């Protein structure tokens, strides 16, 4: 039920940052990993994924490198920059605060 457009603005950025924080990854793997890690709840389509990746690269939070992938094809691998690591910490804290607040309200109902 969770289409990517339903993701709160900026949440996708957070998910991407968190995912590439583990290791450099190419676009498809990032989408795949998010899908897996969210127990198959979140599905990120390329229509949202790639603009977000390019935006984050433009912002200097992630950087890209062409490598030969496990399937022996050229793929663009994204990894976190130091600025991106800082942004991730800030975004994550922000998300904790926000989701905590929302949960608190929803539960009191």
């Amino acid at each position, binding site marked *: 039920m969770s289409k990517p457009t339903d993701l709160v603005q900026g949440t996708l950025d957070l998910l991407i940052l968190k995912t590439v924080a583990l290791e450099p990854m190419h*676009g*498809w793997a990032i989408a795949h990993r998010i899908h897996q890690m969210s127990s198959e709840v979140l599905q990120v*389509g*390329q229509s949202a994924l790639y603009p977000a990746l*390019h935006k984050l690269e433009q912002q*200097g939070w992630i950087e890209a490198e062409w490598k030969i992938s496990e399937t022996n094809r*050229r793929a663009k691998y994204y990894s976190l920059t130091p600025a991106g690591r800082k942004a991730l910490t800030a975004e994550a804290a922000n998300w904790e605060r926000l989701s905590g607040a929302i949960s608190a309200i929803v539960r009191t109902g």
Partner: protein
Amino acid sequence: MSRWFTQFRLTLRSVFNRECVDRELDEEFQDHLQREIEERLKSGLEPEAARYAALRAIGAIAKSKEESRDARRVNFIDDVLRDLRYSSRSMRRSPGFAALAVLIMALGIGANTAVFSVVNAVLLRPLSYRDPDRIVTLSTRVTKTDSTQASLDEQISIPNFQDWHDQSSSFEAMAYYNGREIPATAGATAEYARGTQVGPEFFQVFDVEPVLGHFFTTEEGKPGSGGAAMISYAYWQSHFAADPRALGQTIRIYGRPMPIVGVLPPGFRFPDDTDLWVPRNISPEDMKYRGGQNWLAVGRLKPGVPLESAQAEMTIIARRLEQQYPDANKDRTVGIKRLRDKMVGDIRLTLYLLLSAVSLVLLIACANTATLLLGKATARTREVAMRAALGASRGRIVRQLITESFLLALLAGASGLLLAYWGSAALVALAPAGLPRLTEVGVDRWVLAFTVGVSILTSLLFGLVPAMYASKIDLNEALKQSAAKSVIGGGIIRMRGLLVVGEIAMAVMLLSGSALLIKSFIALHRVALGFRPENVLVMRATIPAAGTPATAKFFQDLLPKVRRTPGVLSAGATMAPPGHIESSGGYFVDHLPPQPDWTSAPNVVLSVVAPGTLAALAIPLKAGRDFSEADTAERPLVALVNESLVQRSFPGQNPIGRTVFCPYDTLQGMTIIGVTGDVRQSGPAGEPMPECYMTYRQHPFNGNTLSIVARTAADPNTLIATLRRLAQETSPDVPMKFTTMDAMLSENVAAPRFRTLLLGIFAGLAVCLAMAGVYGVMAFAVTQRSNEIGLRMALGASSGSVLRLILRQGLICASLGLALGLAAAVAGTRLLTSMLFQVQPNDPWVYLAVAVLLGVVTLLASYVPARRAARIDPLTALRQE
């Protein structure tokens, strides 16, 4: 930092290496698709079905690519580049229009840049000393606001200085100094040079090092020592050809030989273009008279000490000194100011006035360009509508039009900079001599930044309104119009009308301010000075103290020769020709109290003159007699007083034969032998003050610098050579300098002339621009309405009524603008009050004249298009439909 660099690199790559970036994007998407297919193959789908399912799952690839590209901001930059290309094409298509717009804006931007370059050099740029913000001036400040005491303000006495110096802890160094024109002989002839006597810590205050030699030793400063002099770099070059052997050579200053011990670095001329500095250490004699305020003082604050705390400390010290020495320091305290603020003084107001005037001119130029662009927007309605119809968003169209304005403004800024380059040179040439730091005026990076900033700002100002209008065009209407006759709603005409009203209003403001200054300037010239300045040659000469007996009698010997010279009608000599006050102090009449309180005594201007001076300057003698050569030092002291002094101290009485006491060089009473008319001693703008004249033979020592004033039958300048020869024959050791009374007076009013002239120029420019605006709008309206006018005339309207119809429109603009402008002017010109002489800022005649002038000019500007309207041939006009 590296992050910005990364972004910049990525952007550059996206823009200039577009194909590569696009290829990578393709490859990335292809890879994604491939993996989706593989995923589905693994789950057992047929290859064809897997491919189909994958494609369906990932949706529209083209759109995602476009969004990814957007995320890289490629499109934005592409658009800007395209807009720039498009703009330069459209400017080349109508070069006349572009040239006109660039010219108007270049005038505005150039004038602003020129004025700003002066403001920048004089007011904003720090002084070129080390840590200039730590350098301050210290001065005596009279706490009681009594105008007769005002001239005692600023200067300080040595005993007070010594106490400030010893008791304060805020200063790293503090020094007194006193600069004047002094007779100096470096070669064969005596000449005047700017010389300054300085206290021991003077050069520490400025933290300079000599380029050659050393600063004064304590020994050199002591009275009775051989003396010493430091010379400026410029003097070293002009008088010693920059020869290092200048050290040890001597300069005769006041006839005394002084060895040169050092040369200061280039650019150091403090104060007032000083050439020679001589040491002046405090002698016991100096400590006697605490009331003698003959010095100025500067200090260097210790690092980190704010001005306020230094001021607080000095205020406490001053209060203590006031209690300790009430006879000299009653109602006196110490004022501390940053040196720059002090140097800039009252010129600040004039410069800010000019800066605001010139920004009004710029606003008018903007409004003018905006009306031009609005007119052009009309012509381009179809083009814009077509672009909108083809899918350009409103934002894109506005951005395209703004880019055009921006390009226009940049061109104007570049030409304006060129204009400013000449303009600031002209400003410097016009500026009053007293304007400090003029040599520093020029185009530096701040001026450049200012020009660029102003250009960008103006492009928004004049570009935004037309762009907003153009983007609001009704597509259907615009595209339906025939190409020949594109019509614009009343909106644009109204907008242009409003802009013109604004232009007129601003022109009225400038014109009112300028008219007030002109009226005041005329009043300055018409004021009764109390003497006749025309055809008076002024020859300033100084007898060096240590001269031959012939030199000592220089003026006594020279004056009769001058009087006998053909072409000289009468001649005298005075310590201070009218226009500036050389000396002033308190005075008493009839008898001197045993303990005179000079600080609260009425103030009097003190003048030493030779007999015949009154006649030479045509100062009327109201009663009694003038001095004569028989009033010598051996005879009883005599004095002349002016009518102001008589009114103040002898109202309704005969002052002749009474006694006056002035602390000039003696406290002996002087018998009043005559009464003179009042002279405006401090120039045309200052009211006459009480004055006491003394004769030069009874006050010889202080009369060693006198200005010979000779009234001539014809142009006084023709006699300069003759008088120079006579003076050199009398004594070769005496330096002299020639000018005329008219030239001195003109220097007196140099500051008002400067601002009057400039404001006048700006007002003229404003009126011209506003009139061009009126003309443009009316001409445009006539073209737009030619059908309607043709129809009216076909239906029987006379050409007279058409004329009136159009003129009425012009008049409405003019009266709205006038009303607005006059209201703003009445409010704004209050700020001019301190610059006005015998003119009130709400002078009704000035505003009436401004209103009439602008009314007439506006009518003229609308008359030309109105006549064209009246001559429209109804047939032609209607056939155009």
